C-alpha cells in the first residue's frame, strides 16, 4: 500500500526556503579568491595583494554564510538570489581592482569606491534583515557587532585605497594595523564564533548547552575593541585587549572540546576535524599577537597564523558541510526519488585530510620562519598553497557529485 506521506517525500516547500543559488555563487567566488591567494603566495610571496585575495575569500564567504543562516536561525526574511549575486559580484570586482593595484595597476581609486559602496550596502541590507529577525537575540547581537566592525574596517581600508589612488591625501596609513585588527578580530573572528555556536553542536549532533557561555564571545569582542582603541596610544591598553582576546579564545576552545566530547555522532566529520585544527590556530594567533606587544616580530607571525590557519581552515572546513548540503539539497529538489550518495560519505576524505595536513604544516612553518625572519618561510607558503588548492579541489569534487548526479540513479 502506498505510504500516505511518500508523495511529499521532498525537502519541504521550496517557495518557503531561502534561494540557495545566491549563496552557492558567493561560495564559488570566495573559493576562487582563496585559490588565487594560494597561487599568488607561491608566485609573489606574502604581499599585500596576496593578503587581500585571502581577505576577499573571507568577506565573500561571509556574505554567503550570513545569507544562508539568517533566515534559518532568526526568521529574518529570505533573500532573492539576485541580491546576493550582486553583492558577491561587487565585492569580487572591488577586491580584484584592489589586488591589481597592489601589483601595479592604477586601480586603487576605483577599488576604494567599489569596496566602500559594496560594504555599506551589504552591511545596511544585513542589519535590516537582522532587525526583521525575531529569534536568536544573542546571535543577532553578535552579528551586529561583526558587521559594525566590518564597516569600520572597510571604511579604513577604502580610505587607504583612496589615498593610494590619489583620490585624497589622508595621513591614514598608520592605521593599517587597526584596519587588520578590526577585519580579522572584530569582523571575521566574531562572525565565525557566532556561527560556530550553532554550527558546532549541529555538526557534532550535540546539545547546545554543552557549548558554554556566550560571554566568551563578548569577551573576544571587547578585547578587539580595547586593543583597536588603544593602538599607538596606550601599549598597556593594547596588551589588556589582547589578553582578553587570548582568554576568550581559550575559553571558546574549551567549550568546543566539551561539545565534541558530548556528541552523539560516533566519528568527527571532516568539518569538525578542520574546526579543531583551526581553533588551535586561533589560540596560537591570539597568543602570538599578545606576545607581539613584547616582541614586535611576533605580529607578522600572528597574521600568518590568523589568516592561513584560523580563518581559512575554519571556513574551508565549514564549506565542506555547506557546499555539500546546498548541492545535495539542489539535487534532491531536482530529483526527489533519486538515490543520492549520503552526504556523510560524499567527501574524498584522503584528499581532504591530506590538504589539512599540508595546510597545517605550511602555516606553522611559514609562521615560525616569519618570526625568525628566515627565507625558509617561502617553503612554508608553498606547502600551504599545495594543501589549500587540494582542499578547493576536494570541495569542488564534493559539489560535482550532486550537481552532476544522474537522474538514472532513481530509487
Amino acid at each position, binding site marked *: 500500500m502506498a505510504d500516505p506521506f511518500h508523495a511529499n517525500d521532498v525537502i519541504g516547500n521550496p517557495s518557503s526556503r531561502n534561494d540557495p543559488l545566491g549563496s552557492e555563487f558567493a561560495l564559488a567566488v570566495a573559493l576562487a579568491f582563496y585559490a588565487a591567494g594560494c597561487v599568488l603566495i607561491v608566485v609573489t610571496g606574502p604581499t599585500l595583494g596576496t593578503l587581500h585575495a585571502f581577505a576577499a575569500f573571507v568577506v565573500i564567504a561571509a556574505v554567503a554564510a550570513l545569507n544562508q543562516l539568517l533566515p534559518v536561525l532568526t526568521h529574518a526574511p529570505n533573500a532573492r538570489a539576485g541580491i546576493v549575486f550582486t553583492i558577491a559580484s561587487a565585492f569580487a570586482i572591488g577586491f580584484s581592482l584592489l589586488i591589481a593595484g597592489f601589483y601595479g595597476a592604477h586601480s586603487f581609486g576605483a577599488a576604494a569606491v567599489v569596496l566602500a559602496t559594496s560594504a555599506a550596502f551589504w552591511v545596511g541590507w544585513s542589519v535590516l534583515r537582522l532587525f526583521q529577525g525575531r529569534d536568536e537575540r544573542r546571535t543577532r547581537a553578535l552579528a551586529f557587532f561583526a558587521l559594525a566592525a566590518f564597516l569600520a574596517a572597510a571604511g579604513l581600508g577604502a580610505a587607504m585605497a583612496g589615498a593610494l589612488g590619489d583620490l585624497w591625501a589622508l595621513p591614514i596609513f598608520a592605521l593599517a594595523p587597526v584596519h587588520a585588527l578590526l577585519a580579522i578580530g572584530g569582523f571575521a573572528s566574531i562572525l565565525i564564533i557566532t556561527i560556530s555556536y550553532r554550527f558546532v553542536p549541529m555538526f557534532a549532533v*550535540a546539545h547546545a548547552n554543552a557549548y558554554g557561555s556566550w560571554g566568551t564571545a563578548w569577551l573576544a569582542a571587547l578585547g578587539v575593541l580595547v586593543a583597536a582603541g588603544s593602538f599607538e596610544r596606550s601599549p598597556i591598553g593594547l596588551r589588556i585587549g589582547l589578553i582578553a582576546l587570548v582568554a576568550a579564545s581559550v575559553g571558546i576552545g574549551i567549550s568546543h572540546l566539551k561539545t565534541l566530547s558530548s556528541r552523539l555522532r560516533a566519528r568527527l566529520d571532516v568539518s569538525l576535524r578542520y574546526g579543531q585544527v583551526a581553533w588551535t590556530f586561533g589560540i596560537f594567533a591570539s597568543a602570538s599577537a599578545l606576545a607581539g606587544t613584547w616582541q614586535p616580530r611576533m605580529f607578522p607571525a600572528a597574521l600568518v597564523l590568523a589568516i592561513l590557519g584560523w580563518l581559512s581552515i575554519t571556513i574551508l572546513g565549514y564549506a565542506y558541510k555547506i557546499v555539500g548540503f546546498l548541492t545535495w539539497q539542489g539535487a534532491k529538489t531536482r530529483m526527489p526519488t533519486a538515490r543520492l550518495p549520503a552526504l556523510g560519505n560524499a567527501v574524498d576524505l584522503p584528499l581532504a585530510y591530506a590538504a589539512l595536513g599540508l595546510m597545517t604544516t605550511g602555516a606553522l612553518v611559514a609562521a615560525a620562519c616569519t618570526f625568525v625572519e628566515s627565507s625558509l618561510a617561502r617553503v612554508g607558503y608553498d606547502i600551504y598553497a599545495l594543501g589549500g588548492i587540494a582542499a578547493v579541489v576536494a570541495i569542488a569534487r564534493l559539489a560535482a557529485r550532486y550537481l552532476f548526479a544522474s537522474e538514472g540513479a532513481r530509487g
Partner: protein
Amino acid sequence: MDNQKRIVRLDNRGLAPPEPMMRILTTIEDFDRDAILVANMDREPIFLFAELHDRGFAYSCDPEIGGGYLLKVYRE
C-alpha cells in the same frame, strides 16, 4: 495498513537549535517501518534533512498556515 502505524508526536516549538534535531534523532533511533514521527517546528530543520537521509529515513516538511513547519519522518 496506514492505520496500524505508530504515530509519535513531538512539539519542538520554542526550542533553540540544535535541540529540535537532537530530540528527533534520539526519538527515531529505534524506529521501525511502522512508526511515523510528526513534529511541530518553529524553523525548517535544514541540517536535519541530510542526517535523516544518511540514516535511511524519508521525510516531508511543510509550512503551516499559522507559522512554523510540520515535519513527518519515517523509515524508507
